[in-house]
């Protein structure tokens, strides 16, 4: 997919010539008094609000990244359709980070230096978002991350320019543990990708699991980039866990569940997935997901309870032939919505004023009211527990999950500010 731009971008083409004329006019002594005033008005009207959006369109998380970008565009379109802010329209500049920290940092730097973006939203990967955050915080540019990470809201990675719209592994693991352990059993084996996201999830389970009586029989660390998980299965089977918790994400999640089902593990133990993905479920089909339980930030059926979900779904359906939006798509929408609503509240794109506005803002993009906790800028929000439906109970192709529990938005489900190193 190529970069997406709104039509608003064409306004900028008028800029140089207008500026040239202004420059010539300014040189004339007769225009001296009037020109500075006139110049400002012309600039303000032409200046679009630019949001940089680096996401890994290429690679194993590509499907989720594409959704993030598509839904962020919806937020931008809605903002523009409502007249923008004081006539200033918004523009989304999507860049492909290729799931590579170096690539992401370079694209982000370009967005800031060359494209002069007002802020950056995006990223998908616990590791890559830290690279983006490093660039934005040294350049003092506001960044809203829309991918799970515990590290980004904690010291030393956190900065006052850093906001985190996505759930974090600690709250996700907590919600899944509170549902799964009492219901399915406390003897658990984890299958975990060997990088930041996986480690943070397991840390989350262990922190919450203390009170719930979690017995971790093993934590099988799979190498990143593994496509075949079969060699881990005999060991998992021999440990006889009550629950296998799969921490893999994206395409790896689907491959894992596919192989888990083909080896019949799902007949011997309960299968839970920490971040259960709507897109992977659609791609994988009902059979291999049947009965799998997992955590999520969003599922479209939330519209039965929440009116902002209904609005978001309708906007997505209209653009996508009746299809339903995904969990990670919703992050793209929410992160962009948070910034744009913040700009309205702040009365402009000045970064300091925007930070103050976002810290105060109560906003409801798609799942009920959220707010950024002051100490770490983590979005306090609910976590959904979903269960994959068997084929017989699906009413249409998008009707793939039941919402079996909602862990409410509550700061007590987050790590404390002190634990994260904030004074």
């Amino acid at each position, binding site marked *: 997919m190529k970069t997406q731009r709104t039509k608003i971008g064409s306004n900028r083409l008028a800029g140089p010539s207008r500026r040239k004329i202004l420059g010539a006019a300014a040189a004339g002594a007769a225009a001296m008094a009037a020109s500075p005033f006139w110049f400002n008005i012309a600039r303000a009207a032409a200046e679009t609000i630019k949001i940089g959006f680096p996401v890994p369109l290429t690679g194993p998380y590509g499907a989720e990244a594409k959704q993030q970008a598509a839904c962020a565009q919806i937020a931008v379109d809605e903002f523009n359709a409502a007249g923008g802010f004081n006539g200033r329209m918004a523009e989304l500049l999507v860049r492909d980070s290729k799931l590579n920290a170096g690539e992401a940092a370079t694209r982000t730097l370009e967005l800031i230096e060359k494209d002069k973006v007002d802020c950056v939203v995006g990223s998908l990967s616990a590791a890559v978002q830290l690279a983006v955050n490093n660039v934005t915080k040294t350049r003092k540019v506001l960044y809203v991350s829309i991918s799970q990470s515990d590290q980004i809201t904690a010291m030393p990675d956190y900065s006052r320019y850093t906001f985190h719209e996505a759930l974090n592994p600690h709250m996700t693991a907590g919600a899944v543990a509170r549902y799964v352990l009492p219901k399915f059993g406390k003897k658990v084996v984890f299958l975990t990708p060997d990088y930041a996201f996986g480690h943070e999830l397991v840390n989350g389970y262990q922190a919450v699991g203390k009170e719930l009586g979690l017995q971790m029989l093993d934590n099988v660390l799979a190498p990143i980039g593994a496509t075949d998980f079969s*060699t881990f*299965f005999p*060991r998992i089977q021999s440990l006889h866990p009550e629950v296998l918790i799969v921490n893999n994400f994206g395409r790896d999640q689907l491959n894992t569940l596919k192989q888990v089902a083909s080896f019949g593990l799902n007949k011997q133990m309960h299968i839970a997935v920490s971040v259960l993905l709507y897109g992977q479920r659609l791609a*994988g*089909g009902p059979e291999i997901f049947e009965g799998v339980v997992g955590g999520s930030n969003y599922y479209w059926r939330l519209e039965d309870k929440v009116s902002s979900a209904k609005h978001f779904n309708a906007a997505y359906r209209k653009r996508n032939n009746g299809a339903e939006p995904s969990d990670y798509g919703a992050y793209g929408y929410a992160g962009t919505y948070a910034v744009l609503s913040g700009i309205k509240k702040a009365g402009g794109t000045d970064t300091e004023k925007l930070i103050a506005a976002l810290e105060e803002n109560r906003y409801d993009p798609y799942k009920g009211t959220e707010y950024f906790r002051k100490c770490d800028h983590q979005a306090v929000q609910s976590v959904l527990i979903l269960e994959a439906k068997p084929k017989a109970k699906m009413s249409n192709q998008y009707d793939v999950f039941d919402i079996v529990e909602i862990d409410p938005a509550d700061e007590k489900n987050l790590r404390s500010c002190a634990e994260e190193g904030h004074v």
Partner: protein
Amino acid sequence: MSPNFLLLQAFTGFALGAIYVLLAVGLALVFGLLTVINFAHGAMFAVGAYIGIFVFGLTGNFWISLVIVPLAVGGIGLVVERVLVRPLYGRGIDYPLLLTFGLSYVLLDLIRILWGKQGLPFDAPDALSGAVDIGIGYFPLYRLFLIALTAALLVGLWLFIDKTSYGLVIRAGARDPEIVRVLGIDIARVWLMVFGIGTGLAGLAGMLAAPLQGVFPEMGTPALMVAFVITVIGGMGSLVGAVVAGLLVGLAESFTAIFAPQFSQLSMYVIMVLVLLLRPQGLFGRAGLLG
């Protein structure tokens, strides 16, 4: 640790090894007989998987795809050999290496343009889905099918090369192309055939791996790595070496997974380093093939 657990672990490694053999055999064939290091092997693997999806989409039949894919990818291989590789014979081993390296990037981008960057799911046919009891535990039917198919392919390949007169010409051509040419045999046609068979096998492996890991444009990269490591361990150009090394790597990966799962994929590189230090021509390789 129960004996059943160890047996199941060993069998899982064996099954994985069979898949690795399938990946490597085409590469080993082309290198052994043509001394061409085909860096586009991984890309052909991916092309095979995508053509498999395409044909499956048209026909809805896994078995028809299974026949068409090796023929189609083999056909692409014929064109590549005739148009791109042939002019480079006699110019040193690195010329075709660089050419196929570049070709792999072209093919990768062609796939991205034609089928998108996202990756597509691909399922085993219903007749081969599910798990069966093999006495020591349940094992997926599809993986058992892959073991059987790989064995059948290897036997077929061995019969063709070792027992037919065409195979005799191929072997003679690998040893001394000048003499074969003097005897009035069109050696260029033989090489064309071998390259076609090698790439056809890569394509077939890609389609067969698709139900295990899905289909995505970059799927050829790890496959190429595995194929190379196995070819180096087994001995450049040795088919027997590829089989032994493939199974060895599968078993090593499986047993490493018991003790240090995060290093399971590293095990094959450790074996490669040891082999290169102690027996640089590989377990079954002829010394001096690269000279």
